[in-house]
C-alpha cells in the first residue's frame, strides 16, 4: 500500500513538474489575427510579420531574457464577436498582452483590461483617446492615433497647396469604412474643417459594399473634391483605388492613412501610380532584423509567409507590432527582476518603453523607423510619419517626417478621454503606480 502511495505521489510530482516548469519557462503571447474572411488580404501579411518576429526571437535568442515565448494565434476574422471569443479563450492561459487588430474588438476590450489585468496593444488603431495613460492605464496605441494621422495628412495636403491657410474654400473628400475605425477621425476632421475653412465630403462604404463602390465614386466625380483621403481596410482599399482610376481621379491627390499594401495598389495597374499613404517604417527587407527573420524562420519553413512578402508594408507593420511587445516584455523583466512576467508587469514595461536610436540599432532596426518613447501619461508617442508614393511596384518615401498637429490633437484627446470616463459610469481612477522617471 505504501509502495503504491509513494508511486502515485512520485507519478503526480513527475507529471505535474513539466507543467510547472512550462509555466515558469514561457511567456504567453496570443496574437489575434485574421487570415480568413473579407479582411484576410490585409490581415495575413500582418499576422505573418507579427508571428515571424516573435518566432525569430525564440530561434535566435531562446525567447526574451532566456524565456521562450509561447505564441498562439486566434482567428477573429475581423469580427468583434469572434474577437471577444478569442479573448475569453486566451484569458485563462495568462496572456501578457492582447493585440485585437480591430478597432471594434479594441473598443469592446478596453473596459475589461483593468479588470483582467491584461494590457491592450492597439498599435496605431483603436480608440484615439486611449493614448491618455491617466485615463486608460491598460491601453497602449503607439506610435500614432487616427487623429494624428488625419492631422498629418492635412499638413501634407496643406504643404502641397502652399500652406494650411490655402485649404480655405477647398473641398476634401473622405472615403472610409463605415465602422468604428473609419468613423474614429470624424470629430477631429470636423474640427479641422472649422479651423481651416475647408469643406468635407463624406463617402462611407459599408463592409458589405467594399467591392461595390461605384456609387460612391460617382459622387466623387460629381463633387470633384480637391483631395481625397481614405481610411480603408481589406477589400475596400484595392476597390477604391480601382474606382478612383476608373473615374480618372488624379492619383497624386489621393492619400490614405497607413493601411494600404503594395498589392492593394498594384491591382489598379499603371493608373495607381502616384497614390500615396502615410507610413512610419521602412517597406523593404534591407535590415538586420528582417535578415534574421528570413534566415531563422522563413528559410527554415517556419513561416506561413510567402518569401516575396517579407519586407512589404504590412509584413513590416506586423514586425513593428511584435517589436513593441518584445520591448515591453524586456522592460518588464528589467523592472521586476522576474523572468516569466505577467500582464501587470508588461503594462509597466509599456509605460517605460524608450526605443531610442541606439536601441533601434541593437534591435537591427537602424533606419527602419524613428525613435519613440512612452510615458505613464502618454501611451502613444504621437510620432511623425512620412508620405510614401506608389511607383507601380512599390512605395517610395516622398516626404520628410511630418509631425502631427499635437496642439490640435492633444486638447481633443484629453476632452474625449474625459468624456469617455464620464459616459462609462464608475470608470476607475488610475491607481497604478508610475515607474517612468
Amino acid at each position: 500500500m505504501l509502495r503504491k502511495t509513494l508511486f502515485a505521489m512520485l507519478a503526480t510530482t513527475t507529471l505535474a513538474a513539466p507543467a510547472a516548469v512550462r509555466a515558469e519557462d514561457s511567456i504567453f503571447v496570443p496574437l489575434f489575427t485574421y487570415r480568413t474572411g473579407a479582411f484576410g488580404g490585409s490581415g495575413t501579411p500582418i499576422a505573418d510579420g507579427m508571428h515571424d518576429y516573435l518566432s525569430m526571437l525564440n530561434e535566435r535568442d531562446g525567447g526574451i531574457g532566456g524565456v521562450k515565448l509561447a505564441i498562439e494565434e486566434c482567428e477573429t476574422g475581423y469580427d468583434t464577436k469572434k474577437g471577444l471569443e478569442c479573448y475569453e479563450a486566451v484569458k485563462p492561459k495568462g496572456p501578457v498582452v492582447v493585440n485585437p487588430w480591430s478597432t471594434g474588438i479594441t473598443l469592446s476590450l478596453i473596459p475589461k483590461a483593468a479588470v483582467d489585468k491584461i494590457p491592450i496593444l492597439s498599435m496605431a488603431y483603436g480608440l484615439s483617446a486611449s493614448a491618455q495613460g491617466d485615463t486608460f492605464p491598460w491601453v497602449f496605441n503607439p506610435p500614432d492615433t487616427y487623429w494624428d494621422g488625419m492631422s498629418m495628412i492635412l499638413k501634407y495636403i496643406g504643404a502641397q497647396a502652399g500652406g494650411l491657410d490655402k485649404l480655405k474654400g477647398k473641398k476634401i473628400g473622405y472615403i472610409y469604412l463605415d465602422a468604428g475605425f473609419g468613423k474614429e477621425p470624424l470629430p477631429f476632421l470636423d474640427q479641422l474643417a472649422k479651423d481651416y475653412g475647408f469643406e468635407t465630403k463624406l463617402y462611407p462604404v459599408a463592409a458589405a459594399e467594399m467591392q461595390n463602390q461605384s456609387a460612391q465614386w460617382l459622387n466623387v466625380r460629381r463633387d470633384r473634391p480637391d483631395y481625397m483621403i481614405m481610411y480603408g481596410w481589406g477589400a475596400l482599399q484595392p476597390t477604391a483605388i480601382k474606382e478612383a482610376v476608373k473615374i480618372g481621379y488624379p492619383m497624386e491627390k489621393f492619400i490614405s492613412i497607413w493601411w494600404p499594401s503594395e498589392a492593394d495598389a498594384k491591382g489598379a495597374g499603371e493608373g495607381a501610380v502616384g497614390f500615396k499613404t502615410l507610413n512610419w517604417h521602412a517597406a523593404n527587407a534591407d535590415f538586420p532584423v528582417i535578415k534574421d527573420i528570413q534566415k531563422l524562420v522563413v528559410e527554415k519553413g517556419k513561416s506561413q509567409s510567402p518569401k516575396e512578402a517579407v519586407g512589404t508594408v504590412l509584413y513590416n507593420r506586423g514586425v513593428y507590432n511584435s517589436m513593441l511587445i518584445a520591448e515591453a516584455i524586456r522592460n518588464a523583466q528589467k523592472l521586476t527582476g522576474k523572468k516569466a512576467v505577467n500582464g501587470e508587469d508588461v503594462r509597466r514595461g509599456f509605460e517605460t518603453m524608450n526605443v531610442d536610436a541606439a536601441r533601434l540599432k541593437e534591435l537591427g532596426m537602424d533606419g527602419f523607423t524613428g525613435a519613440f518613447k512612452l510615458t505613464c501619461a502618454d501611451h502613444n508617442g504621437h510620432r511623425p510619419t512620412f508620405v510614401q508614393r506608389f511607383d507601380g511596384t512599390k512605395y517610395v518615401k516622398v516626404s520628410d517626417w511630418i509631425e502631427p498637429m499635437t496642439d490640435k490633437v492633444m486638447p481633443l484627446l484629453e476632452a474625449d478621454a474625459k468624456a469617455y470616463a464620464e459616459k462609462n459610469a464608475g470608470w476607475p481612477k488610475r491607481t497604478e503606480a508610475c515607474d517612468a522617471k
Partner: protein
Amino acid sequence: MMHLLYQIFIDPFVQMAGAPDLLVQTLWEGFVGGMLYALIALGFVLIFKASGVFNFAQGIMMVFAALTMVGLYEKGVPAPLALLLAIGVMYLLAVAVERLILRPLVNQPDIMLFMATFGLTYVLIGVGELIFGGSPKEVPTAQLGLPKGAYDIHAFGGLVSLQKIDIAAALIASIMVAALAVFFQKTRIGRALRAVADDHQAALSVGISLNQIWVIVWFTAGVVALATGIMWGARSDVSFSLQVIALKALPVLILGGFTSVPGAIVGGLIIGIGEKLGEFYWGPLVGGGIDSWLAYAIALAFLLFKPEGLFGEKIIERI
C-alpha cells in the same frame, strides 16, 4: 421643412436634368451591377425551381468557383485551361452535393435542406481558405481575353465612360441569361427540369431521374456562379468579401420571385439601378452609404403589394 421637401422631391431631378451625363453614367453603373445581381439571383432560382431549396451557399459558390480558376492560374495553369478545370470542379461539387446532401435528405422538410446549404457554405469557406488562402486574388483578365480600358464618350453634355470590362460583363450576363432561358424552354432536359420543379412525384412517375436533374441544376448554378465570380472579380478582386454581395440577390428574388428567370433579370435591374440612383441622388441627404440597405427597403416595399414577387407564382391554397 420646405427645404427638406425640395431636397427630396425636386433637387435630385434638377440634378438629373442639369447633368444628364452623370445620370446616364449612374444608369449604366446600375445596369451593369443589376445584370450581375441578376446572374447571382439566377443561380438561386435554378436550384429553387428544381429542388425547392433556397441555396444559401450560392454566394460562396461564386467565390469558390472564381478562386478555383484564379488559384489554378496562379499555380501555373494557363488561364483557359484553369477556366475549364474550374468548370470541372463545379461539376464535381454538384455531384458531391447531390450524393452527400440532397439524396440522404430526400423527403425531409425544406428547412433541413436549407440548413444543409448553410453547412455547405461553411465547408466551402473552410476548404477555399485552406487551399487558396484568405488573400484577395486578381483575375487574369488579359489571359482570359477580357478587355481593359474604357470607351470615353463625349455626350449628354459631358463625359460618359463605359469600362470595357463592364460592357463584357453585361454582354456575358445577357448571353448566359438568354442561353438559360432557351435551355429551360426548348431542350429536353429543360422540360424535365420544369417538370421536376412543378411536381417531383409526377416527374418521377414519367421516368425523369431526380438525381440526374439535381446534378444538372447544381452544375448549371455552379457555372453561373463561376461566370459571376470572374466578372465581379475582374471589376475588383476575387476575395471572400464577394460572398456578401451575393446577399443582394435576396431583394432581387423578393422582387422577381423565387421561381422566375425573367423575374431574376428584371429584379436584378431594378435593384441595381435603384440602389445606384438612390445612393447618387438621395444618399448625400443622409450622409451617404444608403446602398447597403436601400435594396432591401425597395424589396420590402414590393412585398407589401406583391408578396409573390413580380413574376413569381401566385400561391393559392384551398382550405
